[in-house]
């Protein structure tokens, strides 16, 4: 997996955040294009390429969710965009309330605020489970659920100004 290779790490779902950051700074000092401004064009291009991948990799690996998504994808697992069945009823009610508020029915607002808080709590609990789960099938279903919940939060926040 290219992103792990960029850091000289073995692919793993969990990793040491401080060690990752240390490796990022070390490698940036060595590879950054600034260090090659008087080198040949080929070397400059190589430095640009390696640093871009290093930065992309750091962005992905330091974030537990992005890291898990990357890891699963590289392992050949597909993530789905389908709604998790256990959330269907809740989503239906949420959409109703969203419509009502958009049409100017202020009575829907408290319900939406409450729904948002519940989804945020749900997301945080998924993040907690992600940190301790190692079974890839389970990780996949957690990620599916998380992605869906995140979209719901975004939808509600688009309607509720802060």
């Amino acid at each position, binding site marked *: 997996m290219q992103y792990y290779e960029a850091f000289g790490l073995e692919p793993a779902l969990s990793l040491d955040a401080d060690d990752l950051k240390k490796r990022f*700074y070390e490698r*940036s*000092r060595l590879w*950054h*294009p*600034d260090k090659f*401004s*008087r080198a040949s064009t080929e070397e400059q291009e190589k430095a*640009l390429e390696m*640093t*871009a*991948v290093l*930065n*992309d990799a*750091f*962005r992905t690996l330091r974030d537990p969710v992005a890291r898990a998504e990357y890891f699963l994808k590289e392992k050949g697992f597909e993530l789905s965009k389908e709604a998790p069945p256990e959330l269907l009823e809740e989503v239906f009610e949420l959409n109703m309330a969203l419509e009502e508020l958009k049409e100017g029915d202020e009575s829907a607002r408290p319900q939406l605020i409450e729904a948002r808080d519940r989804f945020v709590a749900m997301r945080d609990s998924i993040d907690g489970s992600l940190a301790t789960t190692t079974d890839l099938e389970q990780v996949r279903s957690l990620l599916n659920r998380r992605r869906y919940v995140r979209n719901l939060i975004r939808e509600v926040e688009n309607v509720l100004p802060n």
Partner: protein
Amino acid sequence: MSFQIDFGNEKSPIVGIDLGTTNSLVAVMELTGPRILSGIVPSVVSVTEAGDVIAGVEAREMLLTHPDRTVYSVKRLMGRGVDDIQDELKLFPFHIVEGSESTIRLKLGEKMFTPPEVSAHILRKLKLDAEAELGVAITQAVITVPAYFNDAQRQATKDAGRIAGLEVLRLVNEPTAAALAYGLDKRKEGIVAVYDFGGGTFDISILRLHDGIFEVLATNGDTHLGGDDIDNLMLRIALEDVKDEWNEDVSMKADAVQLLRRAVISAKEQLSFVPSATIDLAYNGKTYQREITRELFDKLAAPVIDRTLGPCRDCIKDAGVSVAEINEVVMVGGSTRIPLVRGAVEALFRKRPHTELNPDEVVALGAAVQAGILSGDVEDKLLLDVTPLSLGIETMGGLVSKLIHRNSTIPASATEQFTTAVDGQRNVLIHVVQGERELVKDCRSLARFDLKDIAPMPAGFARIEVRFLIDANGILSVTARDQRSGKEQSVEIKPSYGLTDDQVEAMILESFDKAEEDFSERQLREARVEADSILAATDKAKQNDAYFELSEVDRASIERGINELLVVYHGNDHLLVRAKIDQLNEATQTLAENMMNTAVRGALKGTNVNG
């Protein structure tokens, strides 16, 4: 052997340039630290009646006498289209040529210029000033840009450098440059916010400083918000006032408006230090005076200053830090002299901002530090900057699919697969946009990339991998590969704003033609710089014991050499100056050799040869 070895051809330095909306500056990195060269160059360009293009202080004077042949604040037009600048046109006397569309053209006198060409004249002025002071040719530069500049604005700045005959080794974000200059002798670790409020742009950046690494965590801003906006508010009121008092509307008279603008700016600047100032105008035998108190000024300026606070809050949030975690706030840009600005920043960040650095110079100094990093002279510092805006592509229904999110550390890249929708389709058009909104129409169009000459095959069979790469300057490039054949896929780029490569090439050639005219003058100047060094070196050598050991004849020929060089020094013939330099060089050869021998003997005496 000659004295040339002491003053030999040093490697030409990379200069750092702050290309500002109102003023520009050039600096260079020296052993003792970064240093500003020559003086402030007003970012004003004018065409004289003789057809010569001038930049800087002289051009600023032309604003009063020939406002129709003079342009200022051109930075506001860099990388923009005519549709973008309608608001600016109401307030700035830009002389836009009819029919300008994606590329703006300005008319100054009989000549036409694109904004990068105007900026190139400012850059060339800075380049010549730096060359005169350093006595060497300058060919490479680091140029600063507002952190919130988009791809087109950055590209336009880079084009300006090329047109001016400068290889732009790096574009550096202004607040980041300021942090570099600041972090050099102040804080070594911690989180620093840089609040950069200049003439025409506003930036806020939050950085983590760690063991020589300057890591930008987030940046935000407004590329059309600055002290100019306060000037315009004051100007509008003053114009109304003048109309009432004189029964004459001078708002269409460019020279009167220019005079009044200057009076307004002067009052604004005074109000940073005194509680009340006067706007003074004398025009066509009439006079106008108006006292303005700081209280009134604050009332006018408050809405403009408030507009900087939203981006600050967003930036803090994006950086993932709390206000309490920010160790220091650094102020950059002339507008941060305004007490109300300082108060607003202090209230928001809950700490007293640093104002001890000269807010006009700190960006150029930082650019020089970055130049030192690139040349290898500064080894322990490294800048990790971010892209200010998300990069995306247009998808079905005019929606944006984001590929690289804002505040990603650059260089950054993203890869995307494309295929065909119709049997036998030969082209795929990719529309790249920059911005945070979800609809294409609310984002900034960067360019359309046409993947061409795709091998004909059934719909959906083509597999083209497109790589989007933002380099360390924040500028995008796109490459594509046909995954089936493994071949590089040709990409034709149509920038939405700005110049094509061919246009820039043409402008460089044109500037070379003009440079020919300056050439002899330039050679003369270079010859004089060289003459200065050899005269200084000879003067110094005359104090040396070796000089007194010379024969009468040798000493006399050195004296003659000096005198003859001095005679031709102020003439117009650079070849003659060169000839006399050579003559003096020859006359001092024995002296140089003797001094060298003495030095070697001295060095040997001091060496322990037993080791």
